[in-house]
């Protein structure tokens, strides 16, 4: 139940926007479609809404095949990145729109419309703005009105296309907590599209990671962050240090250096990419430590943790300078007493190894 898409394909000319995408969005969940721009996430959302049609494949809403039905019959609430409010109508009339355009026999009476609209405006905490026009509202308020408008028709599913994309950082942060609380209150199956990994991980029950028209990984925020299934997911979610090398026994050879990987399924001798998040690396000053040699470039000691930026030594990987980033507690940094320009060794506490296929961004 909920929303299901099966084998969706979509071409824009030569460009493959969606490549055989099949997904299941469970009822009552808030799911994030996450990926870089151009990965097909918005196209998928618009296909689910019926604003775009797939070249092949099926869209199943609440168990019913909706592939061939028009957007107005699908009973989906759609929230646009740039709000798409009707600027010639008051906030009240915007929210009432979906009720007023219903066929006469389904249309509620004026008193019912009024009650319902005011309730929705209360739900989004903007009932005091009912008589204003959209141009008199702030961006965050407009998006909440757009959401109330979408909810007025009691949609089976709620689809949000980069809902906070046009807002500034502070309002974004407020609104995503607010969206989470709202969803806990109304429990409508919801999908929102975003390119902001922090937003996806913070708000969603489940995250779908997309890249170049296909799905990379589906899972809870914890799963995708802690156990990325592909190199793409690893590098897309949060900052990461990469090491290109070759597996031999327990170690990964990176240039003249060795890293212990602590067990991996990758075949001996194969060329690999190893990932470690900044907090999964430690800095050692003892010359016989097993790790990658680097020179400290900068030590940034503000905030709860300290960041150390380093440059790799003796690694001519793709003729590029290798940059590393390590996150340590302030106490650790003080204990190490590292100075800029000092030569140290990076030792991973945890290393994820993937077979090398292509260059990872």
């Amino acid at each position, binding site marked *: 139940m909920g929303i299901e898409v099966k084998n969706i394909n979509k071409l824009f000319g030569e460009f493959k926007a969606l490549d055989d995408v099949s997904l299941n969005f469970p009822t009552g969940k808030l799911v994030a479609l996450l990926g870089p721009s151009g990965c097909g996430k918005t196209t998928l959302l618009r296909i689910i*809404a*019926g*604003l775009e049609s797939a070249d092949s494949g099926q869209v199943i809403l609440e168990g019913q095949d909706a592939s061939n039905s*028009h*957007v*107005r019959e699908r*009973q*989906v*609430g*759609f929230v*646009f990145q*740039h709000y*798409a*409010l*009707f*600027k*010639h*109508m*008051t906030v009240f009339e915007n929210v009432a*729109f*979906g009720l*007023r*355009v*219903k066929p006469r026999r389904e249309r509620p009476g004026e008193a019912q419309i009024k009650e319902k609209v005011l309730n929705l405006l209360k739900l989004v905490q903007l009932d005091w703005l009912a008589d*204003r*026009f*959209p*141009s*008199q509202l702030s961006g965050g308020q407009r998006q909440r009105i*757009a959401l109330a*408008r*979408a909810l*007025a*028709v009691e949609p089976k599913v709620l689809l949000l296309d980069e809902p906070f994309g046009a807002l500034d950082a502070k309002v974004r942060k407020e609104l995503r907590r607010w969206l989470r609380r709202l969803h806990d209150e109304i429990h409508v199956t919801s999908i929102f599209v975003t390119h902001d990994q922090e937003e996806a991980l913070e708000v969603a029950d489940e995250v779908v990671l997309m890249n170049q028209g296909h799905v990379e990984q589906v899972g809870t925020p914890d799963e995708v962050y802690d156990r990325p299934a592909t190199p793409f997911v690893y590098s897309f979610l949060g900052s990461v240090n990469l090491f290109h090398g070759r597996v031999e026994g327990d170690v990964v050879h990176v240039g003249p250096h060795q890293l212990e990987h602590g067990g991996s399924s990758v075949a001996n001798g194969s060329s690999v990419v190893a990932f470690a998040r900044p907090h999964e690396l430690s800095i050692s000053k003892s010359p016989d430590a097993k790790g990658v040699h680097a020179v400290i470039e900068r030590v940034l000691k503000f905030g709860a943790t300290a960041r150390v930026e380093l440059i790799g030594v003796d690694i001519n990987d793709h003729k590029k300078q290798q940059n590393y980033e390590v996150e340590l507690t302030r106490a650790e940094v003080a204990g190490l007493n590292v100075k800029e320009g000092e030569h140290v060794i990076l030792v991973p506490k945890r290393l994820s190894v993937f077979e090398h296929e292509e260059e990872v961004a």
Partner: protein
Amino acid sequence: MTRPLVKQSVIPGFGVTLGFTLAYLGLIVLIPLSAVVWKTTDLSFAQFWAVISEPRVVASLKLSFGASLIAASVNGFFGLILAWALVRYEFPGKKIVDTLVDLPFALPTAVAGIALTAIYAKNGWIGQYLEPLGLKIAFTPTGIMIALIFIGLPFVVRTVQPVLEDLDKEIEEAAASLGANRAQAVFKVVLPIILPALLTGFALAFARAVGEYGSVIFIAGNLPMVSEIAPLMIITKLEQYDYSGATSIAVVMLFLSFILLLIVNSLQAWTAKRTGREI
């Protein structure tokens, strides 16, 4: 202590531009128009009334304003459709159609008049088929309307077109996702947004039609009481050296046009206010 009348602004030059605007408007518009009124005061009110209440003059005023209103309305409707097609659809020859729209602007009006007369006359391309059906166009008020529609079309298309281009497709998608059918989306969402521009186009087309002379004069036939337009009456008076008589009609036309444009403008202000937009 003196206080400046105009506060300092980040956009300088208010005084200069306002002064220039007033002087320019005065020179170009106000002085000639007041001369018209001035000349009319040569007549006593009784004489003035006698000129403008003459049946031929009344008939011509009715024809001029009536035909102009109808022509502007027709242009409002079809101009909107034309603008819509030009903005929304891609079709071969779109650029050419787009250019054709401006042609009535560029063509000498007399040329337009002669061409229209040739086509709609009894033996013309179109006239020869309409005449047997009992439809007379050339030398009737219908012909006048056609000429006025011809010259007024670009005004509506060119004022509505940019507003339609700015109209966000998402607005219509939002309406559809909320369950609105196509007619509801157009009448409740799209039309209210372009209405102010449409009204402007209507007003411009109307104003142009009221003052039009060249293209109408050939197709009108100029039968007294039937197809004589007000500008023609003015010319006739001028040819008889009856300057005050001519300006009397001009004053009435000025007054009526001013009232009608004022109504359109306040209608526009009202729609803008109703929809929360800055005027």
